[in-house]
């Protein structure tokens, strides 16, 4: 309790004097202080409320250790990442070429866009019964659901990117006799690439949200299942919160990895200008 109050006061003090810090120090000091302050508040709230079920920060740390020692954690992490990776790659592999073609060809756009727009608002969660019916409980259903949740952002994002290609670039290509397949390789794909990468990033974020929900409802492994299991097996909310934090950390890591795509010379123009 005392430690928490001190931490809260200390972080408040640091935030108060933030103006005097250099930009570089602020960059790490401010978020660390905010995090420390929130953890301190969490701890104080636990003590004040006298909750028996809700874990304190320290309980959560112990729960983390228990999870890591239990060995089952890595199996669940691997299961979730496996489903997300394959579902996402499948969606990108089909969604990007489809989006390029639908975005470029007006007739294909007219034919397919209404169907794509009609299927898009259906939450992937609503597909869970059908996924289980088709693939049973397990990885197949998980991959299918992640495919669905990534496919629409990627396809729609790619379509929009292609339809946004500037008339001047199209005419330049035309002027120098670039057509058909070469047009896709030299103009359509590179022009759309920055926005495609953005849509991949959005899709991966959605995929990571959906997999947890899907595993809570219809699977017997994975981080979502772990949360459900921890609650059902004797209200282990400490394990629930520890798993939630882990889900957040992996989400940050995934986003960090996919953002590596944005630094290449061929796409950097799409994020700095406009």
């Amino acid at each position, binding site marked *: 309790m005392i430690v928490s109050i001190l931490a809260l006061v200390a972080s408040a003090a640091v935030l108060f004097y933030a103006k005097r810090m250099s930009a570089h120090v602020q960059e790490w000091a401010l978020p660390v202080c905010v995090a420390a302050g929130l953890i301190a508040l969490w701890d104080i709230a636990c003590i004040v409320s006298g909750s028996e079920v809700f874990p304190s920060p320290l309980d959560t740390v112990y729960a983390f250790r228990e999870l890591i020692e239990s060995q089952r954690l890595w199996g669940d992490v691997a299961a979730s990442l496996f489903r997300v990776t394959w579902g996402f790659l499948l969606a990108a592999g089909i969604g990007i070429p489809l989006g390029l073609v639908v975005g470029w060809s007006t007739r294909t756009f007219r034919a397919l866009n209404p169907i794509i727009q009609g299927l898009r608002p259906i939450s992937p969660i609503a597909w869970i019964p059908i996924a289980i019916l088709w693939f049973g409980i397990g990885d197949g259903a998980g991959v299918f659901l992640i495919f669905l949740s990534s496919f629409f952002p990627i396809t729609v994002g790619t379509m929009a990117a292609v339809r946004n290609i*500037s008339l*001047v*670039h199209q*005419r*330049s290509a*035309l*002027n*120098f*006799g*670039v057509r058909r397949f070469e047009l896709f390789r*030299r*103009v359509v794909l*590179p*022009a759309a*690439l920055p926005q495609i990468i953005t849509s991949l990033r959005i899709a991966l974020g959605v995929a990571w949200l959906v997999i947890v929900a899907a595993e809570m409802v219809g699977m017997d492994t994975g981080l979502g299942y772990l949360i459900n299991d921890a609650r059902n097996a004797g209200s282990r909310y400490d394990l629930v919160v520890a798993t939630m934090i882990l889900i957040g950390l992996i989400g940050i890591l995934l986003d960090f990895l996919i953002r590596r795509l944005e630094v290449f*010379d*061929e*796409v*950097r*123009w*799409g994020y*700095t*200008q406009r």
Partner: protein
Amino acid sequence: MSSSKRKAPQPKVVFEGVSKTFKKKGEPLEVLSAIDLTVDEGEFVCLLGPSGCGKSTLLNIAGGFERPTRGSVKIDGAEIVAPSSKRVFVFQEYGIFPWASVWDNVVLGIRHKSKAEQHRIVGEVIELVGLEGFERAYPMELSGGMKQRVEVARALAVEPDVLFMDEPFGALDSLTRLTLRTELLRIWNERKPTILFVTHDVDEAMQLAERIVVFSARPGRIAEIVSVDMPHPRDIGGVEYGNIKNRLYELLGVTHMI
């Protein structure tokens, strides 16, 4: 110059009764009305007029990007129905590809030639526009003026007989614009392509063109064709320059005194 030494001018680009009507909210809107114009081989012609007078539309028709409603444009006697890399368009908003390096942009029109040929030509045009050392740079790392040089280099690489320039320096600051005009004249003297240059800037037209085609607006018609019989470098403070300029302002219907 004696007429016996100079070849008789060959007509290069011929506009015959070119009209263009757009549909605007269901109403037909005539933007160009019966344009007749002959541009000779190796000539530098400016199309001058207020915004919306149809001069860019005329250039787009000549470039093969749009079709006239009536009439035709012929280059070397053949009617223009589609763009070709023998006639290159230089755009105002940067038409170069931001995802490709300077080298890859310039090589676009000669990508089917051998690697050795590509090296020779790209090296040559990059030197011509003064971009040595920037071959590996990306457009986002270049200033506006340098991007426009890349665009000009890309156009010159294919050795076009006609250059269509649609306010190519419009987005640049006035000093860069002056420099690039001088360089364009130097390149024109060296290679003598036929140039059709659209601008709404009276000084720009005066400094560049051998003949200035002045447009009146709505529908776009040729008001008058003004010859600028002044050798380069032109004295832009002289009396002759001033007289032609006054005439142009008069034709455009704007006052030249503020």
